[in-house]
C-alpha cells in the first residue's frame, strides 16, 4: 500500500500541479492533498483526480512544520506503509513496482532542479521523498526547510539513483519570487547559506542528458555508505483502543497527543525491534557536483548567409553534358558517354 501526499496552495493548478497529480496517481494507491490557502482551481483539480483532501490555512512561511505534523496526524487515522511525498511542482521518475521493491525505511532521491531550458546542477541535491510509516511523525522544527518527511527519515535515509524533477524554479520569474520570499522569511540566511539564495539569481543552466545523470547517480549511490549504527534505542509502542474498538500501536512519545483527541483507552505496551538509527552518510551534494555531465559548447550566433550565385554542385570537366553524371576519370567519362545514343 503506497500513500502519497502533497501540500498545495493557490495558483499551483495553473503551473505544474497536474504533472504532480499525474505522478501521484500513477505511483500511489491513496493520495491526500492538503489545501493550504488553495483556490477553486486547485480544489477542482483535487476533485477531478478523486484524491482525499482537507484545508489547513496556516501561513506556510511561518508554520510549515506544524502544517506537516497536522497532516501526519490526519494520516495516522489508519495503518500506513510506504509514503511518497511531493511538492506541487515535482515529478518522481519512478514506477510503482520500483517503490514496492524498496528495502529499508526512508530513501533519498536526487532533486533535479529544472532551470530555463535545462537543469541546474549546483541547485540540485538529495532529499527524502519516499519513506516507510512507523508512527514517528515529528518534523524538524524550523519555519523553512523542514523537509517533506519526518525528521528521522533524514537520519536513516538510503540513497537511490532516482530522479525527482522539480519545476518550480524553471522560469526566471519564479526564481525571482523565491528570492523575494526568502528575503521576507529568512533575511539573515539563518536556515540556509546565503550562497544558496544567491545562486537563484543565475540564469545559467546545464543541458539535460538523462543517461549521463543516471550514470552519475548510480556511481554516487555506490559511494554513499550507511555506516553501522552508532546508537540503538529500542522504541516503545503503546497499544490504544479507539472508540470503534480497533487497536492501534502508537509510539510512546505520541500517546499523550493521541489521547487528547479523545476516544482512546490504553490496552497495553510493547518494545519493538525497531531502532532509532544515527548513521553517517557521505558524501551528498558535493560529489554530485563533481560529476562530468558534459555541456554543449557556448552558443555562437550563426552568420546569416544568403544564397549567392552560382550555387550548387560546381561544374566539373568530368561531368557528362547529357545527364549530369560526374565521372571519376576521363576514361570513365568516355565509357559512360557510350550509354547515350548521340553523345
Amino acid at each position, binding site marked *: 500500500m503506497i500513500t502519497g501526499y502533497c501540500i498545495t496552495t493557490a495558483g499551483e493548478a495553473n503551473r505544474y500541479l497536474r504533472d504532480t497529480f499525474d505522478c501521484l496517481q500513477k505511483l500511489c494507491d491513496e493520495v491526500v492533498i492538503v489545501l493550504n490557502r488553495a483556490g477553486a482551481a486547485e480544489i477542482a483539480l483535487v476533485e477531478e483526480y478523486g484524491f482525499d483532501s482537507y484545508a489547513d490555512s496556516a501561513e506556510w512561511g511561518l508554520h510549515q512544520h506544524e502544517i506537516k505534523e497536522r497532516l501526519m496526524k490526519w494520516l495516522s487515522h489508519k495503518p500506513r506503509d510506504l509514503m511518497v511525498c511531493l511538492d506541487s511542482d515535482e515529478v518522481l521518475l519512478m514506477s510503482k513496482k520500483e517503490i514496492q521493491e524498496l528495502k529499508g525505511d526512508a530513501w533519498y532521491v536526487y532533486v533535479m532542479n529544472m532551470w530555463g531550458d535545462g537543469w541546474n546542477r549546483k541547485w540540485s541535491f538529495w532529499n527524502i521523498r519516499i519513506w516507510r510509516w512507523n508512527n514517528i511523525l515529528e518534523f524538524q522544527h524550523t519555519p523553512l526547510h523542514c523537509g517533506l518527511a519526518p525528521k528521522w527519515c533524514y537520519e536513516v535515509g538510503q540513497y537511490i539513483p532516482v530522479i525527482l524533477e522539480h519545476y518550480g524554479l524553471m522560469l526566471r520569474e519564479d526564481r525571482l519570487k523565491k528570492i523575494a520570499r526568502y528575503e521576507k522569511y529568512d533575511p539573515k540566511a539563518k536556515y540556509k547559506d546565503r550562497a544558496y539564495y544567491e545562486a537563484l539569481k543565475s540564469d545559467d543552466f546545464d543541458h539535460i542528458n*538523462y543517461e549521463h545523470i543516471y550514470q552519475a547517480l548510480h556511481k554516487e549511490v555506490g559511494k554513499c555508505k550507511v555506516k553501522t549504527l552508532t546508537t540503538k534505542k529500542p522504541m516503545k509502542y503503546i497499544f490504544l483502543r479507539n472508540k470503534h474498538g480497533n487497536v492501534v500501536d502508537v509510539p510512546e512519545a505520541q500517546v499523550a497527543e493521541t489521547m487528547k483527541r479523545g476516544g482512546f483507552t490504553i490496552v497495553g505496551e510493547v518494545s519493538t525491534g525497531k531502532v532509532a538509527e544515527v548513521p553517517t552518510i557521505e558524501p551528498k551534494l558535493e560529489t554530485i557536483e563533481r560529476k562530468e555531465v558534459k555541456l*554543449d559548447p557556448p552558443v555562437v550566433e550563426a552568420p546569416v548567409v544568403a544564397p549567392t550565385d552560382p550555387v*550548387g554542385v560546381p561544374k566539373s570537366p568530368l561531368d557528362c553534358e547529357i545527364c549530369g553524371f560526374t565521372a571519376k576519370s576521363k576514361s570513365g567519362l568516355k565509357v559512360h558517354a557510350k550509354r547515350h545514343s548521340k553523345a
Partner: protein
Amino acid sequence: MLLLYIGNFTKPWCTEVHIKASFESLGHTVIPLQEGKIDNEIIFNAIKKHNPDFLLYTKTWNKEYDWKAIKRRVFTVSWTLDLYHNLDRKDQLDNNPFFHTHLVISPDGGHDKEFKEHKVHHAYVKPGVYDKECYIGKYDEEFDYPIVFVGSYLVYHKEWTHRKALIDFLYKTYPGKFECFPKDRAIRGDTLNNLYATAKIVVGDSLHSPHYWSDRLYETTGRGGFLIHPKVEGIDEEFEYGTHIVGYNYWDFEGLKKKIDYYLENEKERKEIQMAGHQFVKENCTYVERCKTVLKLINDEKTKLWGGKRPI
C-alpha cells in the same frame, strides 16, 4: 508502437495522412490529433489515455500548446519537410516550439552545426513519397507538353531568384512547348500522376542548400515523371544521374537546354530513366521507408536522452 500525431488530417493529400498510413502499414497505431481542434487539455488527456511511445508533431499554425508540459509527459518529435536556414523564416528556429521538441526531423542535412547553435536537437531524414501514389498514370491531353514545371512559380521565396530566371528562360526558349503547373486549380491525386505520365520532361528546381532538396524530387519520379533536377550536394548519394534522374547545374541554362533537347529527341533513353527512377523511388524512398528510419532515430534518441527510461 503507439503514437499521437498532431497535424492536419482533413484532406487525403495531406502529408500527415500519408505518414500516418505509412506508420500504420508498418503495424503501428497512430492516434491523430487534428490541428485547430485541439488544446492542451485534449493533448494531456490523450497522453494519459493512450500512454503513447511518442508524440509526433507536424508544423501547424497553432503555437499555443504548452510544449514544456507536453514534453514532461511524453517523448516529442517534430517532423518538417521544409528548409529554414538561410531563409526569412529562420527566426522560427529560436522562437517556434516546433524546433524545441526532443527530436526535430527535417530534410536539411547541411546545417548540423547551425542546428546545434540554435539548440535544435536535429536529425536528418530525406523527404519521401506516399507509396500508394507511386504508379504510372494515364495520358491526359491537358498536360501534353514537351516540357513542364510543377510547383510554385508566381509566389516563391524572394531569396530564391533562380526559379523566376529558370521559368522565364524556359518560356522564352520553348514558346508553346513549355508550361507551368498548376495553373488555375490544384492538381492532386490521379490527375497529378496523369500529368507526369503525359508531359515528356519535368524540369525541377529546389531552393539551394547543401544536402537539402524538395520532396518534389521524389514525388515527380515516384509518380512516374522524367525529371531534370538541379545538382545539389548529396543527391548523388541516393540517386544516380543518368540512371534515375538527370542533373543540371544551377544557373547553367544553356547546359539545361542541351539536356532537354537531347532527351526530347531520345525517347527510348528518356523512358528508361523515367521507369528506373520510378522503380527506385517506389522501392527505396517512400514514407514507409522514411518511417522506419524515423522510428530507429526515435528509439536511439530516447535511449540517449532519457537513458531508455520513460520519465513519467
